[in-house]
């Protein structure tokens, strides 16, 4: 018996890296075009979720272990807040990125990049967490039934 989902598997295996690549494009292109941490995080999560939908939750959990989720969630918030704490240490107000570099505009750039990375981290992991949480509860859907 051949795999009934061979077409889906081949196509999605091809697409997942592109989706992830697009997520990073959105992330780092956010300064120039539409986009930013939220959108990029969601798209990155969508890549993992697509993988989980096609190859099953177990395979996805191997690719993106649940243990990363707790860490990633906190890391995102800490990265964002940590940027603010760094500006405190450098003597500015909370989240005043201007103090991060000699030139205030450069400081702003660094700050925005760091902060957006934090958002990316949180959003990706939380979206995947929600999917894992709901996906794990359902009775295993039979291969032939979907």
């Amino acid at each position: 018996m051949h795999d009934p989902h061979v077409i889906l598997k081949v196509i999605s295996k091809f697409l997942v890296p592109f989706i992830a690549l697009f997520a990073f494009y959105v992330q780092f292109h956010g300064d120039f075009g539409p986009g930013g941490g939220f959108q990029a995080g969601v798209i990155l999560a969508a890549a993992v979720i697509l993988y989980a939908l096609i190859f099953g939750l177990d395979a996805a959990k191997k690719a993106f272990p649940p243990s990363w989720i707790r860490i990633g969630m906190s890391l995102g918030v800490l990265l964002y807040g940590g940027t603010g704490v760094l500006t405190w240490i450098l003597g500015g107000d909370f989240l005043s990125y201007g103090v991060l570099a000699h030139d205030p505009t450069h400081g702003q750039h660094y700050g925005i990049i760091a902060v957006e990375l934090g958002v990316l981290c949180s959003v990706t992991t939380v979206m995947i967490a929600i999917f894992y949480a709901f996906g794990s509860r359902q009775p295993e859907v039979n291969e032939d039934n979907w």
Partner: protein
Amino acid sequence: MLLSYVVSPTIILDVALMAILIIVAFSIVRMRSLFAIVMLQGVYSLVSAAWFVSLDAVDVAFTEAAVGAGVSTVLMLAAMLLANRKSDPVPISKQIAPLLVVLIAGLAMFYAIGDMPAYGDVNSPANTGVGMDYIERTTKEIHIPNVVTAVLASYRGYDTFGEAVVIFSAGLGVLLLLGLNGNAGRWTARPTGRQIYPPIAPSANSRLIASRDNIKLSKGSIIEKPSSVNLRKSKNNRLKDKGNN
């Protein structure tokens, strides 16, 4: 052709998109099949994303398309698989109060329409206030082309920090309540001293005791932990549903 001189084409587009939104919203309300509702919500998000594009709010549209139409549809589908395929019809008596709320809120908004600034008015407070300043100042102070990113991450970075924490706490809530492996808590709280009276409340292990308070609740399927029998039944139903499509 003549019409386009009178009304600008984007207005026609806006009105058409809004009309689609209203129709979709109404059909979501009227629909009983959860699967259709989830799909229609995806449609709703996509159409509103298109509408945001026509309003030149590309960033919002992008977010709406990615979150509303993309991930949240999948998440809702995943959640839907745990519930019944169809929602129970709500009795009319329970629909009156929400209907009144919606009507009053809607009428209040209609009441305000008369004094609202015109659509796309350049001189409206929203367009002359801080918005313009942001555009001016971003080029001077932050030097990035996308003003939206500048506002979100720098001028109002504290808000975005709050949003990140909102997402974090949503994730935390999921971890607390569901766990990542689908093991909702079966752990039962227990007083340290001697339990004088038999527990009045149903806790994690015990089934529901029908009391005045929770007869109502047991209808919402949140409470009932599906036993294996239930699961099998619902699975059969699901298959049957597919067959009937």
